[in-house]
């Protein structure tokens, strides 16, 4: 009895202390995509240092960001996949998409004897992921890689077990380049994979690739680099073999500029351009068109800030900043927000 009393008193005191509110500074809460989390956390940290405003962002997933924005529990969302018209219609007041950075999806592999430089084309990749090509020394792969000693080893296909924007970009690419994939699987943040083992998160897939010889999997570029995994050079739409790099990602973004819709909702996979890497995607901040005055001021201020100061921080974290011409268009869009 005494002990229970002690615990309760202690707990109540603690709770009371926590409940004392301090002076209100304009602070925001945001949720969404995991892919840009490193750059967003850098941005919000720097923004806090220079303006003293707290923006708390958590990476619970693109779908989670959209859900929470729709439920009104966060001030802004973030997503690796653009929202559909149906999703936008469910959000009170609507949604404006602001592209922030672009990233590449690398095909990392673990093939004994092949240290680097594996070349793949769109059709071969689709065949691998559909289970049509099952061995590394299959003629389809060998044709693209003359002189490379491909072992007689089964291909273990790795994909994401959790829903993800990376999957969305990857499957969107496969849908564009393979009609068979388009009709049998399609693209989304989660799909029914014809073959393969699922790893949780980019790190799960990276882990699979490094542990199991013969595995190929798709991961964000940063994971391939950080885990020192070799990644494939892909044949792009123009027929050139391109590696996933910041430059080739920016080239893909630039290539899509001509057909960029005014609301910035576009998938830049299989982009046109000689140097464009074919498996890239934008990531967006999802913002309401109107806010109350305090929140609206902070939101618009931050949006201006990331376009002017934030973009320069992208390259260090393996993200491709927005092409210059796009930045000015996005800047204009900020004026649409009312508060």
């Amino acid at each position, binding site marked *: 009895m005494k002990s229970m009393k002690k615990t309760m008193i202690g707990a109540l005191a603690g709770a009371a202390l926590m409940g004392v509110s301090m002076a209100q500074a304009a602070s925001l809460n945001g949720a969404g995509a995991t892919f840009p989390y490193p750059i967003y956390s850098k941005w919000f940290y720097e923004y806090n240092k220079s303006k003293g405003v707290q923006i708390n962002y958590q990476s619970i997933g693109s*779908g989670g960001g959209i*859900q929470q924005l729709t439920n009104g529990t966060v001030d802004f969302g973030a997503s690796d996949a653009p929202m559909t018209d149906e999703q936008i219609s469910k959000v009170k007041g609507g949604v404006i998409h602001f592209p922030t950075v672009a990233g590449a999806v690398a095909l990392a592999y673990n093939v004994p004897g092949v240290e680097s430089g594996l070349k793949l084309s769109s059709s071969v990749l689709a065949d691998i992921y559909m289970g049509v090509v099952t061995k590394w020394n299959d003629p389809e792969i060998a044709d693209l890689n003359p002189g490379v000693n491909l072992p007689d080893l089964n291909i273990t296909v790795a994909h994401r077990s*959790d*829903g993800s*924007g990376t999957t969305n970009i990857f499957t969107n690419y496969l849908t564009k380049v393979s009609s068979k994939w388009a009709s049998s*699987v399609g693209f989304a943040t989660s799909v*029914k994979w014809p073959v393969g083992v699922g790893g949780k998160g980019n790190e799960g897939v990276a882990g*699979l690739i490094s542990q199991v010889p013969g595995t190929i999997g798709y991961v964000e570029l940063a994971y391939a680099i950080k885990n020192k995994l070799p990644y494939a050079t892909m044949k792009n739409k123009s027929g050139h073999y391109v590696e996933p790099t910041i430059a080739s990602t920016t080239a893909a973004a630039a290539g899509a500029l001509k057909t960029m819709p005014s609301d910035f909702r576009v998938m830049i996979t299989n982009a046109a351009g000689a140097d464009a890497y074919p498996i890239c995607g934008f990531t967006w901040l999802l913002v309401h068109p109107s806010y109350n005055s305090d929140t609206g001021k902070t939101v618009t201020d931050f949006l201006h800030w990331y376009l002017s100061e934030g973009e320069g921080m992208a390259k260090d974290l393996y993200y491709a900043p927005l092409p210059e011409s796009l930045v000015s268009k996005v800047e204009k869009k900020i004026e649409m927000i009312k508060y």
Partner: protein
Amino acid sequence: MSLPLEVSNSGRAEKALPLFLRLTQAGFGDRLFKKITALFAFLILFLAGLTAFTLWRASIPCIQKMGWSFLNTGDWDPVREMFGSVPFVYGTIVSSFLALLIATPFGLGISLFLTELAPKKMREPVAFLVETLAAIPSVVYGLWGIFLLAPFMRVHVDPILIKSGLPIFKGPSTGLSLFTAGVILSIMILPTITAISREVFEAVPNSYRESAKALGATSWETIQLAVMKPSKVGILGAVMLALGRALGETMAVTMVIGNKPEVSGNLLDPSHSMASVIANEFSEAVGDIHISALAEIGLLLMTITLVLNIVAHLLVWATTSKFQR
């Protein structure tokens, strides 16, 4: 466990008195206490009802679309919005039972060792070690699983199992499999079984043990007769809690089970589980039907836990009624 002497007039005499006098009547404290504790007990039913109701409401779109086929098909296709739960149910049940199969003998063995057999000096350190196992966060189990356990299974354990030629162990294995999930779950539920069984064993009065020893029983026979028998129901409670944990465990399982929604008789094949699919897909699921399907999986899990509990209770009732006097 009520008083041997009942208050005879069911409180009618007390009700005629003014409030102040009523409060001081004998038995009032007892009745109040009973009502308060009953209220809290009721809150448990309320909580379960709330959980089931929330899940049910969220599942309605999927129930309407898929109907019974949700329960007997295995197609999980978020793009085409076709959902079937069979592989997940299979994975959850097999991995949990495997975990119980491994953890129960070990757990009981350890707690017996701690309470009956070990020298006093060994007890606290070993008990401390077991508690530490309980304190490890599930995400750490998952990471240890990917980086240490799965490769260990792939390189050392699975080949031996494959050599045995049993149909449930067929190669090749990546280390991410139903079997590995069962193993990691068994480690996670071990502290539950050990800690609770230990308390149950220690609560058995010494006189039981002394009587057995006086009759010439060996240590093991003493354990069987004097310690295990009266503890049966308590141990069942421990096992049910452990099973509950195993059925609902998310993080650690999802990192080592391979996340492939397919039923396979081979324990070394990757599989999936109900808790894993919810955890994996919930935050990214955007289609209404998709979210609804995940909620229905949650509801299904609750139902299965219910059924398993009924079966366990029936088993206990069948075996203990033989010993009732």
